[in-house]
């Protein structure tokens, strides 16, 4: 072993990381090399001196100063803690609430009569009453919101009839080729809207 190899081993030894045979090799070298031996003694002394430095004493009021510098205790509501622990569920809940809220407000705000259809010139509107007059033929669907739909004798509707939040009066001789649908609850209205969006 030469002096260059010995130096890192001295450090390893002082770290407490030198294993059996290498430790022996180092010992052999130190016994035969006064320079390395001197350096090794200096290192040992350095280590001992550094370790011997006494711990300084902090001011006695340090704890009080630390405690005094803390911000006031924040009372966190269990709700916020729950939200922190379940971020995904929280996001989903907020989304659903927003959706439900916007649908809800749409449902509540619509109190004016609305008529939709492909063949509206054949229909008579009186106040909130939508009339398909006697013997008239309406082609396509007819949708009435917030009003009454009256289909008179022998009138024909070649499509679906939908009444939202209102009533439907069909004469016994009226002829409807499609479905007759009446919606007056928020939930089924929602279902209808979603279907409408999808199609």
């Amino acid at each position, binding site marked *: 072993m030469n002096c260059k190899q010995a130096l890192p081993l001295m450090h390893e030894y002082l770290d407490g990381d030198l294993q059996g045979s290498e430790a022996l090799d180092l010992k052999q070298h130190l016994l035969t090399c006064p320079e390395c031996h001197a350096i090794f003694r*200096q290192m040992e*002394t350095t280590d001992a001196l550094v370790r011997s430095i006494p711990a*300084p004493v902090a*001011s006695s009021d340090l704890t009080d100063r630390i405690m005094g*510098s803390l911000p006031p205790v924040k009372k966190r509501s269990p709700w916020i803690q729950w939200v922190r622990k379940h971020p995904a569920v929280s996001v989903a809940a907020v989304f659903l609430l927003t959706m439900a809220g916007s649908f809800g407000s749409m449902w509540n705000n619509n109190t004016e009569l609305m008529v939709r259809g492909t063949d509206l010139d054949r229909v008579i509107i009186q106040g909130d009453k939508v009339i398909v007059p006697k013997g008239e033929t309406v082609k396509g669907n007819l949708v009435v919101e917030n009003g009454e739909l009256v289909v008179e004798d022998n009138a024909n509707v070649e499509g679906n009839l939908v009444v939202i939040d209102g009533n439907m009066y069909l004469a016994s001789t009226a002829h409807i080729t499609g479905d007759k649908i009446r919606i007056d609850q928020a939930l089924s209205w929602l279902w209808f809207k979603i279907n409408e969006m999808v199609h």
Partner: protein
Amino acid sequence: MNLVETRLAKLARNGDRGAFEELVNLYKDKIFHLAYRMLGNKQEAEDAVQDTFLRVYNNLDRYDENQKFSTWIFRIGTNLCIDRLRKRKPTYSLDAEMPDSDGNDFYAMLASKDNLPVDQIILSETQQVIRRAIDTLPEKYKSVVILRYLHDMSLQEIGDVLKMPVTTVKTRVHRGREYLRKKLEADGNFSK
């Protein structure tokens, strides 16, 4: 894993001031010792200790119970000291370069005053020399040397605190030791 400290940290997280004060009492001297050696003066060290606990308190939510509390608080303390060292570098570097042959430099005077009254602690000249040698250690060796020698941490623990590989810690311990040895040798502190 130290269960007591983890339990105290949990209590403190839920707003228990008493539990936090216990943590302060368990760690303030250790962090002060660290900061004092890193920064070389008492006032700044106490400020750093205060900052450390404030940061611990504000981040209790983020404390990972799977790691040792001591590793976490030492990391915060070390980082704050390193920040302070970096901030003041331009004004203090001249000081550090000055020859300190007769032991009457700024650091030595400050250091000896700090420990008054000296009933129990009488600093030998050699100890003052080693303290000054540590003060002049380059920052990256300083933290490693302090954690290793003054806080008796294993190389692995130091790696955890400083978030660096053990091999890097080892290299820095070796270089730090070599630096200090040469400094002591230059000051004629090794007889013969």
